[in-house]
């Protein structure tokens, strides 16, 4: 009898706990940090690929991801203008993987303060007391203005440097000098001022004698910076280990730990995990503290785990859109009616609903909806009807437009894309939809190296499913003007060119530049130079023992992981959940 009752009670408890788990509220987005920070512990995070280098004058800055932990720029994104554990001004979210680049949201890194003089000069006052990592040959000496001048000049002159390769004219016009030991002056032609301002947030500073001794800083063992962490070990394809820099200069700017020495954690383990399912399993079992990027479908599993915290956000990092050769006179894409027809033949809402689970946005190009760029953005519902119509689905009108343009039976076209599901799936849907209006699309997927080479050279005949430059460059209009790789559609429209010149002339007055961009958007979209498919929402999850964290990823311009110096770990909580 007792046994029977016991079984019944246990059974009831199991049922109740199952119901409770099922009905539990999903993790809340943001909590206000109230506890005093604790020092210690190791932050475990991951990335997909190995870094391709440790010297951003040799490799592009976005391929040297770990540099943001070991080295510093003149300025960076301001933690206190983000969420900052619920204590920041929340002007920014810093969720985006890169590309947020407003001057008003910058904080000094190596530079303590700066002055913008006119539209061609910047003066940076270098922070006193910044020490290099205690490694030979610098042995922890103080950083000087000479190091900054040397590093920036190297970026502008070395043929391998991203700055020199991508912005040769701007690099050539840049004059960098150090009027005294703690001041750096940068002058350039006014038309390149926007480029220079952008670059100062991703060009890292290196010690002169180390570069001269090692020739470059490509070997991880030579890694020397002034950043919050020191790279102590690197096993390619597996793990990067960082130790806390005991001589780091920065103090916690806000919150309960205001004034505390940073960083809080003893170190970081940055795992390299190319396989998605492996990183999911690592996170599930508490071996990773933060899961940086998952889509809505994978997120459903973690949303059922009430102990996890999460944010969902839009990210323009890695988003792609359909470029067409608008420059070829004999190409169908030179005709606006054809471009509009192709857009009208895509059921964007169906893609959004069925493929992205209804969580996403229809309007992602030339700018996604970010609170930091709200002034430059026009929501879809505020755009003219003629533009809104393009985001609808009207195959009959598409057929009519094609017939008017001289293609009553459609045509054949090839599109080059990356050979991954995230690229081929949306295009597969487009192919099926375009087939209904007689346009036969052939997919030509390429592996990453060949794909990026096509994008860099804009070497394609019909169409290209290529990525575009993020919000941080919207004032430069490089997605639809000029001869750079991001103008994948070979667009050369006098209206757009004029607007670009006006925005560049207005810069660094971002409010005026925003206004010009905002006024330009309806015209730009109505031309249908680029067909941008919907974008899904991304999710970020973290365990509750990661404290003073609200989902940040990159503060400033492509500064992945630079939030890590501000977070601290509740090690007791972690032990109570997963053991030692």
């Amino acid at each position, binding site marked *: 009898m007792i046994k029977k009752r016991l079984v019944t009670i246990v059974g009831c408890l199991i049922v109740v706990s199952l119901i409770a788990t099922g009905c539990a509220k999903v993790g809340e987005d943001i909590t206000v940090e109230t506890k005093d920070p604790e020092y210690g512990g190791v932050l475990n995070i991951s990335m997909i690929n190995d870094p391709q280098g440790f010297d951003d004058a040799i490799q592009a800055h976005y391929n040297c991801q770990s540099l943001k932990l070991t080295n510093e720029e003149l300025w960076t994104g301001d933690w206190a203008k983000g969420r900052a554990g619920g204590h920041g001004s929340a002007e920014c979210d810093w969720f985006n993987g890169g590309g947020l680049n407003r001057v008003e949201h910058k904080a000094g890194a190596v530079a303590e303060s700066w002055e913008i003089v006119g539209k061609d000069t910047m003066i940076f006052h270098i922070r006193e007391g910044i020490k290099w990592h205690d490694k030979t040959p610098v042995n922890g000496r103080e950083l000087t203005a000479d190091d900054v001048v040397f590093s920036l000049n190297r970026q502008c002159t070395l043929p391998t440097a991203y700055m020199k390769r991508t912005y040769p004219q701007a690099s050539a016009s840049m004059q960098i000098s150090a009027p005294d030991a703690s001041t750096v002056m940068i002058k350039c032609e006014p038309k390149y001022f926007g480029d220079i301002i952008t670059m100062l947030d991703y060009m890292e500073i290196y010690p002169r004698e180390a570069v001269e001794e090692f020739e470059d800083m490509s070997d991880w063992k030579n890694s020397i910076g002034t950043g919050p962490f020191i790279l102590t070990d690197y096993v390619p394809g597996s793990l990067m280990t960082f130790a806390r820099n005991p001589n780091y200069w920065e103090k916690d700017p806000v919150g309960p730990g205001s004034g505390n020495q940073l960083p809080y954690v003893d170190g970081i383990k940055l795992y390299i995990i190319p396989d*998605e*399912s492996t990183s999911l399993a690592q996170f599930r079992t508490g071996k990773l503290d933060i899961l940086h990027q998952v889509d809505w*479908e994978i997120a459903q599993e973690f949303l059922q785990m009430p102990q996890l915290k999460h944010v969902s956000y839009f990210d323009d990092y890695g988003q792609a859109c359909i470029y067409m050769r608008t420059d070829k006179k004999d190409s169908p894409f030179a005709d606006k009616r054809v471009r509009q027809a192709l857009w009208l033949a895509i059921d964007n809402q*169906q893609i959004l609903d*069925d*493929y992205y689970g209804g969580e996403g946005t229809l309007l992602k190009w030339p700018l996604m909806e970010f609170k930091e760029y709200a002034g430059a953005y026009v929501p879809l519902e505020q755009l003219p009807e003629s533009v809104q119509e393009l985001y609808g689905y009207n195959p009959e009108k598409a057929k009519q437009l094609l017939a008017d343009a001289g293609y009553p039976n459609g045509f054949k076209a090839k599109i080059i894309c990356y*050979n*991954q*599901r995230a690229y*081929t*799936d949306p*295009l*597969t*849907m487009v*192919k*099926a*939809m375009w*087939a209904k209006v007689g346009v036969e699309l052939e*997919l*030509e*997927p*390429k*592996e990453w190296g*060949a794909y990026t080479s096509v994008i860099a050279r804009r070497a394609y005949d019909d169409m290209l499913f290529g990525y575009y430059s993020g919000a941080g460059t919207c004032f430069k209009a490089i997605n639809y003007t000029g001869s750079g790789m991001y103008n994948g559609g070979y667009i050369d429209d006098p209206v757009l060119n004029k607007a670009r010149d006006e925005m560049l002339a207005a810069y660094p007055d971002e409010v005026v530049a925003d206004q010009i961009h905002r006024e330009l958007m309806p015209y730009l979209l109505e031309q249908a130079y680029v067909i941008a498919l919907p974008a899904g929402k991304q999710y970020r999850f973290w365990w509750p023992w990661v404290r003073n964290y609200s989902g940040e990823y990159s503060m400033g311009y492509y500064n992945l992981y630079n939030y890590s110096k501000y977070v601290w770990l509740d090690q007791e909580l972690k032990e109570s959940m997963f053991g030692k």
Partner: protein
Amino acid sequence: MARIEAFPVVEETKRRSFLADLLIRLVKEKPLGTVGGIIVLALLIVGVFAGLIAPYGYNDIYVGPRLGAPSPEHLLGCDQLGRDLLSRIIYGARISLVVGLGVSAIAVVLSTAIGFVSGYFGGKIDMIVQRFVDAWLSIPPLFLILTLIAVAGPGMLQVILVLGVLFGIGQSRIVRGAVMGIRANTYLEAATSIGCRTGRILWKHVLPNVTAPIIVLFTITMGAAILVEATISFLGFGIPPPAPSWGGMLSEAGRRYMLMAPNMALWPGLFLAVVVYGINMLGDAFRDLVDPRLRGGLGRYDRAKRMTAKIKRNRAVEVIDDQVKNKK
């Protein structure tokens, strides 16, 4: 006592064509090979008539629920774009068939040409050709395939050409060996001595005698080609989407949705395994049937043994009959 010497009483069977004989013996002697043959036949029929058999087009999106489970409307379920998996599997059979046949044809033609030149002429030609083949075989095949596809670009034609050349050069060794074995025969010396031209000798005397290994090569290559195509499509270098290559279906989408919709990986994997198994069994059976020297095989040797036994039995019966008559 009358004795019957060296004149066995065996029913004379009508002489059948090589192919008919092979098929009849396949059914009679090789049950597993017959199953393989049925699978290959099914692949042929499904591949050729895919357009008639498949309930939907292979790229008809959202004809069913996204990641839908098997149901009466969609017997094998639906994929991440709501496409009917059964229809994609059926059209995938066509791709496997075209790739298998195309690659095998190219490989057989190439390996025969190289094998004939190398095996028949011998000497320096053989040495030069074989060193090239050695060098070719020393390169890891997957690396070679991925490099060539990266250069040629993805596509069915490219895959067929690359795999055909890859298999063809490698397998030329087998044809060369067979040709060298035949070259030592006296009938070739006789043909040469009466002034037959090389082309005629190769065509009339060598080719018919290496047909058997070539048939076996063809079937073996077919299974291997389907499998390699699936592998490179799995790696994203094969036949581009939305073409429903079974390997491609198994790849990223299949892996990604393994937990949410296991049928997405299960069906292409299962069909791939069954078809390759069937082709291998058929090839194995062919090899046994046409090669009497093969250890464990039951080809002509077995038939000859059975015929001998039958002769002995008939002789014994006749001897007994004789004895009975003599007693009378």
